[in-house]
């Protein structure tokens, strides 16, 4: 094996190594394309998940602890407080580390609940057709056009304060406004699958409806399902942050949105207290970026044309692919460059 090669394209043809077939093509296709986007997205997401679990334990101080009763302004970063202190003289770094748990938890609950809802409604609508389809589609369209944030603000406005800090409840409420897009996509795909021959034959040999849905249709929906799950988690992150920023979630319930709420209360952007809003805002943005990059990877998996998009001559050469110089310098209409691990032989 070539040491240090970052790609297995064309580099694995060692002289004395037998050519190992790459397994059945069906299996190979299940792998996500290993584009930098996907890898960065996966790594980022993993880091945030770890942070959500261990964050509160590795925080240097108790995030609620007040360090000074005399200082009346947020203190800039120092050796004792690496990211400075808040208006209430609490340690920003500790709040940042501990606040991730709530944000990630709410987003995951929202993503899970919304995905379950969208599968139940979308697949049922697509498979059942007729009147149930019309009604369910109408329900989904209704939730699609309703502006979500104002609706959530009204709901949270009336939520008793005691329940304003229950992460699972918050996630579930956010899910109510976030399932419709996934349901619409899943319905469309189910519609296209239900008339295919293999589903038809399953029906003819007398398989039950739930079995056809569960074993014939659902496995083919997994990429779309994953994409819609990530999309909803991303939506959950943004929405929860927005609600907390507005002070609709109990502000003493530590989250990144809540930190931004206190930054706004302290007038951070007007007074240059950047350490109050950049760390939590950046954390939310990076978490969102990881999710979106991973989603790009899944999009490229579903639609291979998007994948070929990144193949320039320079990139192919950097990957050590033979024949890279024969690739067009720039994308040419009507030509889709395809990489083969074995360069095609020239006819003599």
């Amino acid at each position: 094996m070539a040491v240090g090669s970052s790609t297995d394209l064309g580099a694995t043809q060692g002289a004395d190594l037998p050519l190992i077939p790459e397994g059945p093509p069906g299996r190979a296709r299940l792998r996500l394309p290993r584009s930098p986007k996907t890898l960065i997205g996966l790594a980022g997401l993993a880091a945030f998940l770890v942070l959500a679990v261990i964050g509160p334990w590795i925080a240097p101080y108790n995030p609620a602890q007040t360090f000074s009763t005399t200082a009346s302004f947020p203190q800039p970063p120092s050796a004792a407080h690496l990211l400075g202190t808040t208006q209430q003289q609490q340690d920003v770094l500790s709040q940042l580390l501990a606040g991730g748990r709530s944000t990630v938890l709410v987003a995951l609950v929202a993503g899970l609940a919304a995905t379950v809802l969208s599968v139940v409604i979308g697949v049922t609508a697509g498979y059942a057709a007729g009147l149930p389809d019309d009604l369910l589609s109408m329900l989904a369209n209704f939730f699609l056009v309703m502006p979500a944030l104002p609706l959530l603000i009204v709901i949270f406005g009336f939520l008793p304060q005691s329940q304003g800090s229950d992460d699972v409840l918050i996630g579930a409420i956010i899910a109510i406004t976030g399932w419709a897009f996934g349901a619409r996509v899943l319905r469309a795909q189910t519609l296209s699958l239900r008339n295919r021959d293999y589903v038809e034959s399953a029906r003819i040999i007398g398989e039950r409806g739930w079995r056809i849905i569960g074993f014939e249709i659902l496995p083919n929906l997994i990429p779309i399902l994953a994409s819609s799950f990530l999309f909803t988690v991303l939506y959950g992150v943004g929405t929860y942050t927005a609600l907390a920023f507005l002070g609709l979630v109990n502000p003493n319930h530590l989250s990144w949105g809540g930190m931004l709420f206190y930054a706004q209360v302290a007038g951070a952007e007007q007074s240059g207290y950047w350490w109050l809003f950049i760390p939590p805002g950046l954390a939310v943005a990076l978490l969102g970026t990881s999710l979106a990059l991973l989603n790009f990877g899944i999009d490229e998996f579903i639609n291979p044309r998007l994948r070929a998009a990144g193949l320039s001559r320079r990139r192919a050469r950097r990957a050590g692919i033979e024949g890279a110089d024969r690739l067009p310098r720039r994308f040419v209409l009507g030509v889709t460059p395809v990489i083969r691990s074995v360069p095609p032989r020239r006819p003599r």
Partner: protein
Amino acid sequence: MYVISRRIGFYILTAIAAVTVDFFIPRVMPGNPVNAVLAKMQSTVVTPATLHALEVEFGSGTREGIWGQYLHYWYNILHGNLGISTSNGMVPVTTVIRGALPWTLGLVGTATVISFILGTLLGILVAWRRGSWLDTLLPATTFFQAAPYFFLAFLAIDLFAIKLGWFPAGSARNTLDFPALDWTYISDVLDHAILPALTIVVASAAGWIVGMRNVMITTMDEDYVLVAQAKGLPRRRVIWYAARNAILPSIAGFSLAIGFVVSGALLTEIVFSYPGLGFILLSAVQEADYALLQGIFLVITMAVLLANLAADFVYVFLDPRTRREA
């Protein structure tokens, strides 16, 4: 036309549903809404007039059944009566909203149009030049899309208003200015609008870029585009053929996007203290002014529905296939 009338029917049903949701939310929440509101109104003095306004709002002072209250609610809405705003000196909610609505419409409307046009053009460019350095633009725009709008607003104020001093840091106009149709006033309003509008454009253009690029790449593989190229048409014409077909899903997806843009813009307004709907929304939340909260929800929903309807009209006009369906 069949398609159009179907869509109008759908939006009317959605509007009815929105009013119904608005009516039922305070009533299905656990506990007495009047008490819940009073518990959140710690900072304000509760006068008998406030109490009365709340009881009328939630129907707890009347002996009408829930159905009667619902009809009454409709009667009020159809007569333009959205209740009394308790946080603004007991003026009608409609008066408060009327003062704020033009600012939001101006800001969000302009920013959305700019961001749609800019994002679509960039999407076409990125798709056409795929494989070039422009592809690196995508992860960058993703960051702006994933960041909360109001975080970008924080950054914009800190950098452009405070550190560089190019733009005012908040509000929509100088308080000393007298509203008039002269250049001083207009330039002042524009000066105040640039930074919030820029924030909204930067945050929302990413979605259009990615959407347009993905459809455009798929469209460029269609045979008719290849034929156009093979015929030796100028490159500009070929791009135009592909682009005008690729733009259809973007317009169809407008309805999904507009909700995000409006939500984000409301939060941007809050950071900029821009006196639009978002700003009074925040004060409604803080002062527990629920009549105002529900009123804003209704007005935003209706505005979004109208925008959707307009997008549908455009779509039917652009895509003959939707017309043939009838």
